[in-house]
Structures are given as structure tokens and as C-alpha cells.
């Protein structure tokens, strides 16, 4: 385990959300890495300070009475809320939509902030982080099937692209399923493949980093990363698979996306 992987997993560790295997890996790394040990100590200190400080708020008795009074009883009718608009089923769902719009706006400002910096490198780092996160137990797939005709429709309405989902089992890459991921706050489709024990995340989005016609190769924290653009989509493949095997994967995907043959 390297420091980047470790840092990501420190939070689930102190929150008691890490499975035993990963917890052991993190703890083993921390015993040999002073930097990560320091980070872990600081995070634990923060957690304890927050647990010790009284961060809760007790609801005032008047509020409790108001709510009690609003509940149906033999003598009382539902009392209208004091300042909020009269609720209805419609405003309930309207609230959902407004919430989604608001978080969308927040996500958009985040993306602009990030894209002004070193765009490509930032996205590459994010993609690798998303890959590492996905390897955590239970986080790999939202839809688990080797059937491409199940995976592809699953993305409908979840992302604004129809990611190509290609069955490469015959070529030695098994389709595991699909997942909705967020990179820079934007929803991104991830199609998950596997060769032997190596997981490949293929991230597909309309715009994810700088467009590249030919595949760009990079190695980040020991993971091989390939990025290319095709058919108006940005593709990012990340895996701990050997570089030449990942290249082979990219060729197969590219050939299938572009049946007339890649340039």
C-alpha cells in the first residue's frame, strides 16, 4: 500500500467503516510510514476533540410542544407551520428538485475551480482516486452483471452519456458490471472489467480532462492510466494491470467503439 491509497482509507478507518483486510493493510503501512502515522494521529485527535466537545443541540421544549400539538388528537387539528409555506405533496417533491438543482449548482462551481488549475493532471489524479475507492469492499459495482445488455440500460438517466458497454470476455477481459461515480463533482459512468485478478475501471464522460485523439499513457502511484477521446466521449482506463495489457484493452474498446477501425 502506498501513501495515496493509505490517505484515502484513513477516514473510513477512524470512522470504523473499513473492512478488516483493508484496516490491516492501512495499519501495516502506518507502522512503517511516519507521514501517514502523523496524519492518522491528527485525524484521531480531531475525532476525539469533536466527540468530547458537545456538538449536539437539544431541541427547545417549545418546539417539542409545537410538534406534539400538530399531531392529530381528539381535540386538535393539524396546525399550520408558522413561517414556511403551506406544504403539499407537490412541494414535497418540489423540494427534492430544488435540492438537486442546488447541489448541481454547487458541483458546477467546484468543477470550474478545479478546471482552472492544471486540468489534465487534476483529472488524472481524481480518476486514480476513484479507482482506488472503488476497490474498497462493496464499492466496486452498482449493477453487477456480465451481461452488457443489462449494464448499458442501467446508465440511462443516471449519466448524460450512453457509455459503450462491450463484451470482451472472448478477448480475456471479463465484464463485471457498472457503477456511477463522481469525478470533480460530476457524474461519470464507470464500466468495470477484470483480467485475472486485476480490476479495470473504464470511466466514460462527455468531458473529462483535455481531449486526446490518441491514447495518453501515464503511471500514477503505480496504477496505469490511459486517456483518449473518441466519438465525442472522454475515456479513462485505470488498472494495476501491466501497461501493455492495458494498451491491449484500450485497443479492443477503441476498435469496438469505432467499428470502421481506429485511426
Amino acid at each position, binding site marked *: 500500500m502506498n501513501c495515496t491509497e493509505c490517505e484515502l482509507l484513513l477516514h473510513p478507518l477512524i470512522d470504523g467503516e473499513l473492512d478488516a483486510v483493508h484496516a490491516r493493510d492501512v495499519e501495516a503501512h502506518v507502522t512503517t510510514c511516519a507521514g501517514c502515522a502523523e496524519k492518522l494521529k491528527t485525524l484521531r485527535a480531531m475525532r476525539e476533540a469533536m466527540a468530547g466537545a458537545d456538538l449536539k443541540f437539544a431541541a427547545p421544549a417549545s418546539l417539542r410542544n409545537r410538534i406534539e400539538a400538530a399531531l392529530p388528537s381528539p381535540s386538535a387539528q393539524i396546525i399550520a407551520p*408558522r413561517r414556511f409555506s403551506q406544504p403539499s405533496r407537490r412541494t414535497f417533491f418540489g423540494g427534492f428538485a430544488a435540492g438537486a438543482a442546488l447541489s448541481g449548482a454547487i458541483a458546477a462551481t467546484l468543477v470550474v475551480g478545479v478546471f482552472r488549475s492544471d486540468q489534465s493532471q487534476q483529472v488524472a489524479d481524481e480518476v486514480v482516486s476513484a479507482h482506488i475507492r472503488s476497490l474498497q469492499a462493496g464499492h466496486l459495482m452498482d449493477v453487477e452483471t456480465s451481461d452488457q445488455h443489462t449494464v448499458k440500460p442501467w446508465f440511462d438517466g443516471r449519466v448524460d452519456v450512453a457509455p459503450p458497454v462491450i463484451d470482451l470476455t472472448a478477448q480475456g477481459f471479463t465484464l463485471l458490471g457498472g457503477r456511477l461515480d463522481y469525478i470533480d463533482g460530476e457524474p461519470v459512468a464507470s464500466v468495470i472489467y477484470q483480467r485475472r485478478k486485476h480490476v479495470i475501471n473504464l470511466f466514460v464522460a462527455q468531458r473529462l480532462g483535455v481531449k486526446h485523439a490518441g491514447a495518453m499513457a501515464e503511471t500514477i502511484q503505480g496504477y496505469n492510466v490511459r486517456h483518449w477521446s473518441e466519438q465525442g466521449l472522454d475515456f479513462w482506463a485505470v488498472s494495476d494491470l501491466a501497461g501493455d495489457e492495458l494498451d491491449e484493452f484500450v485497443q479492443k474498446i477503441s476498435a469496438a467503439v469505432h467499428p470502421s477501425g481506429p485511426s
Partner: protein
Amino acid sequence: MTGDANAEQDKARRFRDAALPHLDDVYALARYLMRGSADAEDAVQECYLRALRHFDSYRGPAMKPWLLAILRNVCNAEFARRGKQEIAADYSEDEPAAEEVPMWQEPQASPEAALLREQDGATIRRLIAELPQPFREAIVLREVNDLSYQQIAEVSGVPVGTVMSRLARARSILRSAWNVAEGAVR
């Protein structure tokens, strides 16, 4: 008394038993999201009214995250209605005196850990209140409401991976602000 009225009262009783024990949790989240006690009370009342209306169709998950998700929607709808971002409020105004510094577990605290230990409850509450929205929501659901990552993901409507990165970001901002706050009192 009609059968309908009986059913209504029975429902109200079940709702009261299931939902009212979480009132403090719902109120705490409302305080951090709305940043003012009057707005928070209105949001909580609206949340309970909506929850009662939808109680018939409630099949889970656990009651607490269900209520918190409704509260979150109430707050977001209110911000959208006002058409502006939340207004910053002076958080310490109506707060009681800070809690005592917690007892420390680790025998050898690092210098930074020692700084963290000295921050009192009022300061921590203020620093949380200053966090940008998605990070504030994540850290409050985790540290104040004590939800699991999966429950936070359900309340906020995002994948668990996003919850992880929001918590990491929240803690990193808090840590910097913490150090600044510490520097200011020295």
C-alpha cells in the same frame, strides 16, 4: 368517534413513538444547515409535518436517516425559495458556555494533536458552521448525527465514494481552520 379518526390517532401515536425520540438529532442538523435557531425550528416542524404525511408509505430505512433526509430537503427547498445562499450567522451568540476539554487517550500527543485538544466546543461548532454546504452536511451527519457512510449516502443522495471524499475534504478544511483559530488566541 368514527373508525377513520381512530386510525388517524393510532397512526399519530405510532408516529410519535417512532419519530419524536429523534427530535434532538433532527434539530441539531437543522441548526447546522440553517445556521439560526428560528429558521431551524421552522424547518424541524415542517420536517415532522411532512414525515407524518408520508408515514403511511414509510417502509424504512431506519427512522433517523429517513427524518434527516426529509429535513435536508426542507432546508434545501427553503434556500431555493429564498433564491440565495445561506446567510452566515454569528454562531456563538446564543450558545451556552463551552464544554470541558475532553480527556486525552493517547499518551504522547503530537504537537498538532495537542492544538486540537485545546479547542473548545464553541470554537468547533463555529468552525463547522463556516464549512461550505456539502462538506458541512457530511461532517455533521457523521460526527453529530452519528450516521454510517451508507446512511449519509442515502440522506445526501450521493454515492458512498462521494461521502468519503466530502468527509476527507471537510476534515482537511477544519484542520486548517483549527490551526488558524489556535494561532489567533495565542
